[in-house]
């Protein structure tokens, strides 16, 4: 069973994603903070990370660079309420960028693609 780590400071989002993704057959772990994230990733060895950008105490884009430094092979999906961060060059360190929505169809599709190692032919899809 593939293990997904959700990093988001909104508890409601963590609960929603966890419930939906567990229904899809994934094992889900969550954290509401970037504190100790690298240690958590090292300990839990998730197959994929869903990472919020604008968190109260942390910038997800900076956390993404830390993840890439130590665990470059783990797929990371940036998941933000804002599409504007796509314009930040740091976001290209992610496998995919998904704008938050109540409909998780796109997120689930990107999770599947990232876990299969797919790369998009249309680069604008990232």
């Amino acid at each position, binding site marked *: 069973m593939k293990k997904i780590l959700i990093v988001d400071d909104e508890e409601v989002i963590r609960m929603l994603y966890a419930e939906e993704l567990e229904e899809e057959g994934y094992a889900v772990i969550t954290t509401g903070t970037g504190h100790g994230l690298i240690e958590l990733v090292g300990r839990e060895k998730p197959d994929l990370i869903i990472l919020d950008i604008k968190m109260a105490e942390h910038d997800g884009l900076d956390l993404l660079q830390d993840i*890439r430094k130590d665990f470059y092979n783990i797929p990371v999906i940036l998941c933000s309420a804002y599409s504007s961060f796509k314009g930040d*060059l740091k976001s290209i360190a992610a*496998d995919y960028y998904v704008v938050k929505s109540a409909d998780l169809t796109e997120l689930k599709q990107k999770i599947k693609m990232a876990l299969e190692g797919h790369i998009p032919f249309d680069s604008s899809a990232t």
Partner: protein
Amino acid sequence: MFIEENPRGVQSADIVVGIPSYNEADSISYPTQMASQGLVEFFGNKNSVIINCDNNSTDGTRDAFMNTDTQVPKIYMSTPPGVRGKGNNFKNLFRKSVELGAEAIVVVDADLKSITPRWIKNLGAPIFEDFGFVAPLYVRHKYDGTITNNIAYPLTRALYGRRVRQPIGGDFGFSGALADIYLTQEEWSPAVTQFGIDIWMTTIAMCHGKAICQSYMGRPKVHKPKDPGESLGSMFAQVIGTIFDMMIEHGDFWKEVRWSKPTAIFGFGLGEMEMPPPVDVDVERLFDKFVAGFMEYGGFWKEMLTGNVYKKLSEVMALPLAGFEFPANLWAETLIDFAVAYKKGDDRRERLMASLIPLYLGRTCSYILECEPMTIQQAEELIEDQCSVFEHSKPYLLKRWFEEA
């Protein structure tokens, strides 16, 4: 063996900025000044030195460098008279950096016109945050860097699974530990001692599992741009030959790699991007050289390319300039066929590399026609799509490389 002048008697350094050169008297002073300012402003608490590693230039490069007013001490090094090559300059730099006990080494081109002190920070700071290798990320004109766009980036990414946009960017940061690894490599081919050095360094960093990041420079790379149809010379064979040599050396590594992963980014966030100056390209000349290449090398290509690739190339050759297209998947398979032929034939490698140039010019012609109406951002997306095509071609490479061995 090298010549060294160290007037301030520098015996150790935490960070080194290296500037390789050959006959750059008219341009080296500016990057030297910027390097000094960057080291003072961003690494003021560390011991630093600037090293010009030169090829015994005859135009006064040494004097231009040593007479540049800097707060940071300088060392001039040179290969002995008659010994040329950027790679040889780097070998001297690696040796000296290891001798000085440097923790971080930054290298920048001697002909840079757009370098700022921040470039030194952005290439050096990640090394002190435990990255092993830092590649530059800058906005380039869509017609600049065509070897990078059409060969070095897509091929390296498909082979080694790391997305490093400027693997032969010329401006890098790397750790002292990696310098030591470079120094002890046995695979210093003649091409590596010349212009093959950049792709060699990037590839070794990848194959040694070093933490890699790309650093956004904030300004476009402005140096001496070259029309890809005008001046290729031996540089092409040195860079591509090194890529093929590294494929042979590291087959056990890249055969296990599927797809590619993004790389960490260091540097600026949201903000205005400064646009690079235009680069003029003579598309007709590229097309003419492609067609002429078919006349000269057609028989040779037929002999060593697979039948299907040769057939498709013949179809492309028959197209007029208006409506000319050299598809990315055909280009990927052509390069793979060349790599396989390179691996097989020691005695005809020189001819092989020479015959690849017109095909590269044909692909460049097609690329330029396709991205002519595009913005730089759209052209970037085109390059990313080409990379995807290369990654999807990897099964073809694996089949040809390993099953026909």
